[in-house]
């Protein structure tokens, strides 16, 4: 049987340290040769400092998201890439809270993170990015990322596998020539499907590349309680408690929008 390398990829964490703990335990239980985070450690949830603390303590490498880029450069907003006023209104609440509660030393550490990472596993070239390899805040949705577009991106960036996050919804497309684009999803909030669990991705790289999305059930009630204590918007808490997105909805394409409750 050929060697297979297992790589765990954690998307946007959004300060959800309950989910991060549960995810790291699950990765340990399943066994992985390496684990990486893909950025957006803060936003949405409470106590943002707990995420870098945990990642540094566990020695987990990763890349910048737009949040880390903004926080480390002192930007006044998250550069999330929304265009609708309501989306931006809630994004600003998230960013202001996170910026206020992230210590300067962690902001500096965020500035040292690379914007992307390249891995080569037995000749398979893997590129880890946040939004997309070309733009940190590009939203790659399943229903608006056609094969011709993704194949060109693999060509342009000399990659067999491109992994990304940012949009919040996980998907995987296999392209001709055993090439793959994977949006690993996020562990910060549920996937707008009425379930409270979150998702990370396990990549298996051998003769073929495989992608498994792993659901993580965590103590979302505890997270919701802490979000209330921190006076974060009730809309955010509702998402954690119900699994339906209530904010940042206008950016969704038709198919993804129709799948949600709001």
């Amino acid at each position, binding site marked *: 049987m050929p060697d297979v390398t297992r790589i765990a990829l954690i998307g946007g964490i959004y300060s959800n340290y309950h989910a991060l703990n549960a995810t790291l335990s699950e990765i340990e239980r399943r066994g992985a040769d390496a684990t990486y985070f893909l950025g957006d450690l803060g936003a949405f949830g409470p106590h943002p400092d707990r995420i870098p603390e945990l990642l540094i303590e566990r020695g987990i490498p990763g890349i910048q998201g737009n949040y880390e880029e903004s926080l480390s450069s002192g930007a006044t907003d998250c550069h999330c890439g929304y265009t609708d006023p309501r989306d931006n209104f809630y994004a600003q609440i998230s960013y202001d809270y996170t910026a206020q509660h992230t210590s300067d030393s962690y902001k500096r550490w965020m500035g040292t993170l690379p914007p992307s990472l390249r891995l080569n596993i037995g000749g398979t070239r893997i590129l880890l990015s946040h939004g997309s390899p070309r733009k940190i805040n590009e939203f790659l949705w399943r229903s608006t990322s056609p094969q011709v577009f993704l194949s060109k991106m693999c060509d342009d960036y000399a990659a067999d596998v491109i992994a990304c996050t940012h949009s919040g919804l996980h998907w995987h497309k296999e392209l001709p020539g055993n090439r793959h684009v994977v949006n690993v999803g996020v562990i910060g909030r549920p996937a707008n499907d009425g379930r409270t669990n979150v998702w990370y991705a396990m990549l298996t790289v051998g003769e073929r590349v495989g992608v498994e999305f792993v659901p993580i059930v965590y103590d979302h009630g505890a997270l919701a309680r802490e979000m209330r204590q921190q006076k974060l918007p009730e809309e955010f808490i509702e998402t954690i408690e119900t699994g339906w997105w209530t904010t940042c909805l206008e950016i969704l*394409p038709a198919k993804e929008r129709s799948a949600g409750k709001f």
Partner: protein
Amino acid sequence: MTLTPQVPMRALDTLWFQVAGTICNIECAHCFISSSPTNRSHEMLSLADVESRLAEAGTLGVKEYYFTGGEPFLNREMIPILAATLKQGPATVLTNGMLLRKEICDQLRELSDGSEYSLDIRVSIDGYDRASNDAIRGAGVWDRVMIGLSNLAAAGINPVITVTESADGVRGEDGRTRFLDLIRSLGFAKPRLKVLPVFRIGAETKRSHGYEDWERIPEHVTETEAEVLQCSSCRMVTSKGVYVCPILIDVAEARMGDTLVETLRSFPLRYGACHTCWVEGVSCRT
């Protein structure tokens, strides 16, 4: 001598089709290309035209396709055109909503369900009610659009309602809320709204006025700064060739070539409409 800033071409992400040419069943007072029942400056595109452009677009890695006019549903091949497009990528149609008969809406729903890609329908209105809308779009338009929207709702299609800033107060919070309430009242539980500025070219120059000489993108704007403009990632196909963007199709110099690939180069931002895009941060994309 002043230097004209240039917008670079990053990647052709968004391909527009002037699928109905400049032919429209109405004559909006603010139409930046003066579309009308008799304006033939750009002709309709055929299914074969679109298919050959899709083949070109496939080799260039295009991400999404937009269809506009004139009124796209005046094009008798619109449904087959969308079917061909949705095999390759996501599609958005900009319509005045007047021709959205029940059968058309059912076909759109079928196309949407049958594709892995999103099909978005964008319906333009210009006011909260019959009087304000029809003042811009023409007598009787409101009532027909309401029927079209009701057919969309019945087919389970949730359109994006597009409103131009000519609509009173739409940029403000109150105006926005009023529009969202209106959309909800039409049977759309998840209201979607996009507000666009008015381009002071075409018919709009008679309704208000054209651009002043000073309304140009400043010469110090660098190519990197100009990359935020939609023309760094889009092109427009009309019956006359490939243009830089969906707005400037009446400007001869904005025609950049016959094939897509020869238009993948920078473009001088010397027009009044460029100033609107720059100042307002406009993207015609949804």
